[in-house]
Structures are given as C-alpha cells and as structure tokens.
C-alpha cells in the first residue's frame, strides 16, 4: 500500500488529512520536521505533504532535506501562507511537485496526491544526483551526451542571452526573442535540452507555454529568470509548469552556471529514462490541456501550438 506522510504542527489539520486519505493509503503523521525525518528514516514514504510554518524546521527546509535524503519521495507543500522566499525555496531547494494552499479542496488534494503516488511508483533508479547552490560554479557536466545539449534562451532583452553565453559559452546557445522564434528553434533543433526564459515575453506569460511544453517536450528542463519576482506566479509555474528553477534577475553568474549544470543533468536523466517525466507532470489548466491534446492529433508544429496556447491567455 502506498505510504503518505503528513507533516503539520496543527494536529487538527493532521486529523483532517488522515480522514481524507486513510482509506486509500497508509498515512503517517508528524508535527515537526525533525519528527518527519525520523519517521522517514525508518519507513519509506512515497509522498510527503508538509506545512510551511512550523516550529524548528520550516516546510521547505524539510522538503529540501527529504529531496537530498529520500529523493524518490514526491514532495507537496500544503500551506496557509508562505512568503516569497519560502515559495522560491520550494521550487529551488525543495523541487516540490505541487504547491497547495490552505484551505484546500478535498477532491483536488486527492487528485494531487494520487498523481504524486503514480509518479512515485516510477523506479527511481536513474534520478541522478541533486544539485545544491553551494556547488562551485566551475564544475562542468562531463560526457559527450552532456556536451551536445543545447540551451535555448527566450527573452526580448538580450542581456540574459549575454549572461548565458558568458557562463556557458562552450555550448550551443540559441536565442529567441519571441514565442514564434522559440517554437521554430525547438522544432528545428532536437538537441536543445534546457530552456532559459523570462517569465513574460512580450505580452505573453510563459506559464501556459511551459505547461504545454511539459507535454510536447517532456525532457526539456526550464529555468525561469524573472525581472519581477511574484509569489503567485511562482506557484503557478510550480503547479502548471514544473519548472526546474526560478531565479530573480539580474542572475549572478555563478548561480546561473550552477543551475545550468543541474538543468543539463536533469535533462539527460529525463532523456535517458522517459518514465521519470511522470514525476514532473503538470496540472495544466483545462483550456491548455485541450489545446495540447488537440495539437497531439493535428501535427501543426510547435509554432501553432504556442500560438494557440498564447492565444488562450491574451
């Protein structure tokens, strides 16, 4: 039976979660991060749901540690409030699968946990080592496959491309200033494995596009560099885009180098084991899902897909 760990310092929340899930899963509860880690060291858990604001260790701190210690567990953040930094950490450190806000909808939460359970079942054999921000910037992913991975930079401002070139100049770097150009590049160049993009390109927010890309190019790993960091946007990008990283501009060079390396590694592992992409399935908003589903049947190419998706949000 799949195992679910619920972590929250409020016992009544744990009671409610227990009621919700005990019929389908084996539910473990913990009222602190320390307790949760202790439990996990004794029992394997498939999915962990944690609150953010807890005494001692915060939720994202806990999930970050779980990512390192028990990478196969799917991580979900369930919180009443998390400030921007915590939300960024949820993406960048916790690599959370979903970010659910309190109060939640039972059906929706059930669905999220089920999805997580399905993904957790994927054999975790070729997950690769997770990266941490303290890794020195000069380490380079080695191997021929790694060298082939190209980077697509999508931004109307050329500064981001300049920064990427500065940091990873030895790689193939393709730049695009519009969605059209990006789509063309992705269609023509199959070797592009990492997308570095601004959260807004022109009038278009990238959430829908990234969501569509999850389906169209599941191995493509995205780093979002945003001029205006916005917690709501980050939450959407987590839930609907499953982005790899979210960084505020201007991006420090060493940070960018580290994250690019990590993204390349992630891309390679996803390419090697496509079933792992299930771990990054998204909750695409219904219209996007419809468009994406339609696109899979009509081979119109990415450009039309992007255009249609972007059209949904205009």
């Amino acid at each position, binding site marked *: 039976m799949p195992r679910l760990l619920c972590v929250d310092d409020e016992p009544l929340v744990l009671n*409610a979660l227990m009621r919700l899930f005990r019929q389908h899963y084996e539910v473990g509860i913990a009222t602190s991060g320390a307790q949760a880690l202790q439990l996990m060291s004794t029992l394997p858990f498939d999915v962990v749901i944690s609150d953010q604001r807890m005494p001692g*260790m915060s939720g994202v701190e806990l999930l970050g540690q779980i990512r390192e210690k028990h990478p196969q567990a799917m991580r979900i953040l369930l*919180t*009443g409030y998390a400030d921007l930094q915590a939300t960024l950490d949820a993406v960048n450190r916790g690599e959370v699968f979903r970010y659910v806000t309190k*109060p*939640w*909808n*039972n059906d929706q939460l059930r669905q999220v946990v089920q999805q997580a359970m399905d993904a957790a079942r994927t054999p975790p054999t070729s997950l690769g080592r997770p990266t941490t921000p303290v890794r020195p910037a000069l380490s380079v992913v080695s191997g021929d496959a790694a060298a082939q991975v190209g980077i697509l930079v999508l931004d109307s401002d050329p500064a981001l491309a300049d920064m990427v070139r500065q940091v990873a100049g030895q790689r193939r770097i393709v730049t695009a200033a519009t969605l059209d150009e990006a789509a063309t590049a992705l269609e023509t160049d199959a070797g592009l494995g990492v997308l570095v993009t601004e959260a807004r390109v022109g009038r278009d927010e990238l959430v829908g596009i990234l969501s569509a890309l999850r389906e169209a190019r599941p191995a493509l790993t995205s780093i979002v560099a945003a001029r205006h960091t916005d917690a709501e946007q980050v939450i959407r990008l987590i839930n609907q885009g499953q982005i790899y990283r979210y960084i505020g501009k201007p991006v420090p060079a060493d940070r960018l180098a580290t994250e690019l390396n990590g993204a390349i590694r992630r891309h390679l592992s996803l390419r090697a084991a496509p079933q792992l992409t299930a771990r990054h399935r998204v909750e695409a908003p219904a219209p996007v899902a419809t468009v994406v589903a339609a696109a899979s049947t009509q081979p119109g190419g990415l450009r039309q897909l992007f255009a249609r998706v972007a059209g949904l949000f205009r």
Partner: protein
Amino acid sequence: MQTDAAPPTRAWLASLVALLTLLFGAGGSALIGWQLSRLGAEQPEMPTGALEAPALKATAATAEARARLQGLRDVLGSLTEIDERQYAALADPVLASEPGLLALLWLTPDPADPTSPETAPAIRVRHALYGAPTLAQGLPPRSELLGRDLAGESTLAALRAGSETVGLLDFGYAEGHASRLYRVARIDGSSGHLLAIFHLPTIAERLLDAARNATFALRLERDTGEALAAEPDAGSGEPAARQTVSWYGGAVQLSLWPRAATTTSGLPPALPWAIGAGGGLLSLGLAGLLWRMLSNSARMAQLMQRRTAELVEAYDRARDSELMAMQAEKLSALGQMVAGVAHEINTPLGYISSNLQLLHDKLASLGPLLDRDRKLLETGMALPRLTPEQRLQWWHAAKAQHDAHTQLTAEGGVADLDAVTVESLEGLTRLADLVQTLKNFARVDRAPVDHVQLNDCIRDTLKIAHNVVKHRAEVELDLGELPELRVNPSQINQVLLNLVTNAAQAIEGYGKVRIQSRAGEDGITISVEDNGSGIPAAHLHRIFEPFFSTKPQGEGTGLGLPIARKIIAEHGGDIEVHSTVGEGTRFVVRLPMLPAA
C-alpha cells in the same frame, strides 16, 4: 500673496522719498546760494553822498554852457546897438559849444511901439541865430522869426511869468512832437531877453551821460513823469531816490535805481550757481542712496518672505515625507503581521473546510443509507405476514445494509462524524479568538491611552507574532508582577512586535527568544533577548537611525527601531541595546511610572 504687494508699494515710497529729497536739496541749496548772493548785494559799499552825486554831476555838466549864455546876455545887454554880423560873431561860439542848442534869439522891446501901460510893449526878435541842425528840427526859418512879435498873449505872459516854456504854438508847431522836443529858455538881461531853444533829447542824453555811475541806474523825467532819457537798468517801481537837476534855468527829475549786479559784494557771481549745483548733486546722491536703501530693504523683505515660504514648504515636505515614511513603516509592519495572521487564519479554515466537505460526502451516502434502513424496518414490521421467499429477500437486503453499516463503521462511523463537527467548531473558536487578538493588538475602538497591564501587551503581541517566531525560535516568558501603567497600548504593541520580530529574524536556524518584564521603583522594564547573530559594534550606534538597515534591499523600511524609540520617548522612557556578535542581542525598554505625556 503678500510677497507681491509689498515691493511695489515700497518701490513707490522709495521713489517718492528720493524725489522729495532731490527737490528740497536742490531747492534749498539754490536758496542758500541766492541768499548768499543777496547778502552781498544788500550791503553795497555806498560812499557818502552817493545818492546826490549823479544830479550834481548832471548839473555841473551844463554849468559852463549856462555861464556862457549868461555871459552872452551880459555882453548883448551892454551894447546899445549891434548888427547881424556882430551878433553872429558873439552868438556862434556859444551855439557851437552846446550841441543841444538849436537857436539863440535876441529880443528887445520895440521903443517905437506904443502900448498902453496895461499891456506890455511888443518884444520883437532883433536877431536870431540858428545852430546847424536847426532846419532839420523843424523850426521856422529865420526870415519868419526876425521882427516877429513873440509877445503874443501866451508868449508874453510866459516871458513875463518867467516860464521857460514859450508857447511855440505861436509858431504854429503845435502838432507833432516838435513842441515837446523843444525847450525854450529865457535868459533875461537888463535890456533884452536872450531866448535859447534847446533840443531836449540831446540835452537829456548829455545830462545822463554826465550823471552815469556804477551804483545807480538813471532816468531823466519831466515833471509829468514822462521819461526823457533812461538807462536800461533803470527799473520800474519805486526808485531809490529822485533828484532835481537844474539846467538852463529849468529843472528835470533824475530818478535813481540801484543796479542788480552785486558787483560790490565780495563773492564771485558763479558761487550761488556752484552752491546750487553742488547742493543739487548732493541731494541727488542722497536721494539715490535712500532709494537704493529702501528698495534694498524692499528686496530683502521680499527675499526673506520668499525664504520663509521656502522654509515652510521644505518643512511641510519634510513632515509629509516623515509621515509617509511612518505610514510606510506601519504598512510594512502590518504586512508582516498579515503574513503571520494569514497563516493563522488559513490553517483552521483548512481543516474546517476539509471536514465539512467530508461531512457533506458522508451525508451524501448516509442519507440513502438511512432511507434504505427505514424501508427495511418498514418491511420488517410486516415480517410475520411475509412469505418465506419474501423473508429471504428481506434477509438479503438486511445483510446488505448490515455490510454497508459495517463499512461505515470501518470508515469511522458516526463517532467520527461527531469528531469532525467538534473539531470544526474548535477551529471556528480559534478563528474568533484570532480576530479578538487582532482587535486587542490594534486596540480597535478602544481608548488610545489607558491604564494597561503590560504583560497582557506582551502576550497579545506574541500571539500575533507567533507565526513569525515559531519556526525560528522557542519563546521563553519571564513576566514579573507589574502595576498598571498609563500608556498607548497599540503603540506599545507595535514596539514589542518590532522587537520580537527583529529578535526572531536575527536567529539563524533555530534559537531562543526570551522576554522578561520587571517592575522597579521608578518604572517598568521589559527586555527582549535573542541568541541570534548579534549586532556588530560598528552598527550598534546606528540601528536607531532612520532608514539604517542591515536587511537586504527591499526588506523592511529601516524605520521600525527609530519609530519604536520615538514611541517610548513620548511615553517618557527609553530603549537600550546590548549586543555581542555571535552571542545575541538584548533590547531593554524602560517606561517610567509617571503618566504618559
């Protein structure tokens, strides 16, 4: 605005004063100069007898001619008989010596003319001699005169009366100015009369020339006042003196007027002008100076007004920005509070919502379950009358229901539903409590200043700050017994929240925050201590500086501590800080027992 009205008025005033100064200055100087000049003129150096001198001179001028005329008469009177030639020889030199003399006539009575003793004997012109310009002057020719009896009524009467005017009417030259131009002088002798005819204007000129002097301007007049000759300086109005000049037996009046030029004064004539000009320039300078001073003062007044307005504006702006900054700090503090409070609210909402959803789901299945129970029981009431097949059917239905109930129990059953509602109600209580805590913290609808138990403030603040602090630090309370103190509780809460939040944020990882309260003799002491990173000595004296912050850009306003200090100061107290890097920080707030200001 008044700044505009004042300078034009002042400028007008300045101009007016300048003008007046100029006028009075120039005028006064001119007046002084004129008075000075008059000073010279009013005291002329008049030698004695200066007034009589001109007349005497004039008289003296004709004395010689008069003497000659008399001499001629004497000679003619001594002769019994003379002829033309002799007469001419005698009279000519006399005529020549006096330019104004036109004619000399010798008249003797006619012995042959019998007259009554009532009437005078005829006086016939025996001899007549004219001067050169005679004819031009319009006298009758000699031929007409000789033998003519001049002793007409008027003539005789005139001769007899001794009048010097012989009526020339007899000559028929009454019209024109001829009669006025001539004067006839009778120079009596013993046996005859010498009649001399003079051209008045010439005689007058001669007299005037003789009398001319530097002191007086002269005018010769007849007795009637008619001018015979005058100098141009002789003015109108009253003369200084009127002298009689006697000449050929007659007299004319000589009037004297003092000359205008103070040539006799010691001052140069240009001096009054110089003084007037100098005074004018001086007053012009003075006027200019005054004008400058006044307009300067007007300008300075305007400048000061403008500066004052600028200062007031700057102060207003500074105060506005201070207010805005304080407002920003309040909003920031509020934002922090909202963050914690949002979580506090959403957590109970989370399980209340979830529980009610579950309840709804459960009821969705419970309803039909109870319906089926009811139907089963209804059917069961008729059990004795049922056929065995029907009874079997009923038993199957009952078993199914029993399974459903077992399932329900396995799922938790009604007891669980009870727990669901109870927990949800508890959650609602939590929410109500939270709202009350918020109200207490913010002192909504309460008196701003009140007698307050400060330990309550500490507890209220901690409830609000709970969420910020709980995952960073363990909070230890060491609260002593405190008397009530008159404070502004919402402000004190604001200060405590700031200190507690700072303490929590200073801790890396997980640490401890200790809050202590004590009552002393002079007041109450509250300390907030943390075992966080501490504040470096270099920053320690700057933390109360507005906008000084060690937080990254965009986090916090840098105003929390300055405002806290201001609040405590307004309560008559103070805030101290002690810190050691790596060990922790302690803030100590002292509030005096005196009532709040």
